[in-house]
């Protein structure tokens, strides 16, 4: 097992490099084109990329790192984690009890139909300006996909697995930990991915209206003061942040659901 394992790993690494090159050439080319095309620009709205990157380095690796980036990341993580845990926890309870599900369904459908930005005025009234408002907006706006997917995933348990857990007298906690949650895993993660994307959107939007720091505040403020390179730089940082968050999330998903990839691979090839 060890020899084929290592061979496979080294070919995987080779394939990884190839994949990286395959993915990187276009963004790198576009950046280079942007750099060259904007080099001589005197337009107020389209400053040279060099200026933008200079600003990015000065602001975001300098004082902006602690003043704007860290608070944003902190609030985003707090909001995303609370939304995730609340979604999974409530989804588990609602999914396990049909009576509760019947009662909760209309309420959930109503709440999730509210466009999240509409929560901003209410959030401002209830929480004022500051991190708790930003986090609350993320939680109330982004919890729904995880909640709904968890309910669905919990319900989708094969009746024969339920019989197996009963016949072997697993406790409720064991059933949840070893059977229900892993079984719902693929659906929970699909929900979490949407929750993650909404969290990023909502942290920015809520910081724009109700914060005195953070990336959203920085971008809007720079635009209002005609600090255009800052607006560009902030936008780039946001893009990078979202990209990075997604990358980390996919890694985590692959690790947690590694059994599913194997299962799909074997059933898919009919082996």
């Amino acid at each position, binding site marked *: 097992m060890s020899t084929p394992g290592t061979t496979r790993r080294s070919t995987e690494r080779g394939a990884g490099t190839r994949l990286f090159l395959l993915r990187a050439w276009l963004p790198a080319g576009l950046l280079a084109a942007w750099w060259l095309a904007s080099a001589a620009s005197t337009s107020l709205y389209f400053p040279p990329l060099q200026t933008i990157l200079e600003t990015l380095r000065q602001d975001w690796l300098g004082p902006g790192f602690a003043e704007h980036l860290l608070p944003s990341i902190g609030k985003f993580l707090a909001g995303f984690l609370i939304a995730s845990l609340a979604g999974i926890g409530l989804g588990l309870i609602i999914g396990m009890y049909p009576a509760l599900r019947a009662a909760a369904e209309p309420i959930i459908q109503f709440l999730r139909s509210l466009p999240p930005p509409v929560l901003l005025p209410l959030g401002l009234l209830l929480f004022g300006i500051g991190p708790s408002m930003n986090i609350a907006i993320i939680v109330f706006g982004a919890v729904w996909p995880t909640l709904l997917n968890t309910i669905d995933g919990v319900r989708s348990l094969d009746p024969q697995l339920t019989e*197996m857990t009963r*016949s*072997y007298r697993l406790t409720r906690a064991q059933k949840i930990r070893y059977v229900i949650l892993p079984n719902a895993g693929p659906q929970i993660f699909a929900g979490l991915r949407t929750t993650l994307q909404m969290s990023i959107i909502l942290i920015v939007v809520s910081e724009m209206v109700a914060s005195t720091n953070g990336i959203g505040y920085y971008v809007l403020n720079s635009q209002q003061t005609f600090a255009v390179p800052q607006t560009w730089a902030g936008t780039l940082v946001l893009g990078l942040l979202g990209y990075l968050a997604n990358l980390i999330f996919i890694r985590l998903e692959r690790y947690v659901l590694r059994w*599913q990839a*194997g299962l799909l691979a074997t059933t898919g090839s009919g082996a």
Partner: protein
Amino acid sequence: MKMTETYPQDKARTAPEAGAAVVNAEVLLQLQELQKNYGHVQILAGVDFEICRGEFVCVVGPSGSGKTTLLKCMAGLLEPSGGQTVFEGQQVTEPPAKLAVVFQDYSRSLLPWMTVWQNVELPMKNKFAKAERPARIESVLEAVGLGGKGSLYPWQMSGGMQQRAAIARGLAYQPDVLLMDEPFAAVDAQTRIELEDLVLRVRQEFDMTVVFVTHDIDEAVYLADRVVVLSGAPTTVSRNIAVDLPQPRNQRDTKLLPEYARLRAEVFELIQSAKSHATIR
């Protein structure tokens, strides 16, 4: 209420040890006038039989005779509409701790997110201390021919190996009785032969009482100390047939015995007549 009783003539049975007839044996599991209806449809119409400690009983019946329903009522997974199951003197109202079920569809009873080892260990968590488990898991995996394969996931194994893993899980739970619901229906013929012999071997090794539900007449006669033949739905016991074939059995010699052929024909005829008398639904 542990009862001891003399078997009536028609329920004569053979002990697991070669040929030694047992007249007095401890009754482990009793089905008393077991009935089950689904809505207006009667599936079980008073099924009545007993299983003694150490016995290997095969339950055969025509398809649609409610074999799985019967097994679920025995396992405490399904509440009967009438009558009762008594296991070790207690009425069965929930799955007993000393009873394990091996389900027909192994691919839906093993957990794909756990390795074979973890699958086997899961039901042991409430029964065995952590330190006791590894040696026991090792030994049951060895017994079912999966020694050293504990780190595989079920989906990395063939159907036959998965069912071996499911049997190992049942054995590791250390039940007094193992209920098997058409466990080899989904594997190919050669694997089935291997698994039949495997079940006979582990039954001996772990001194297990086995109730084996199947629609396969050959399998039933080959494995059993006694065959319980069911009628078609609504189901009752149509006959108890003692299988007095010598132990240990083997696929070639046992099946060449005239007695084997006679028993097989007897069960076959009963099933055929049950089919023709079954209410058409």
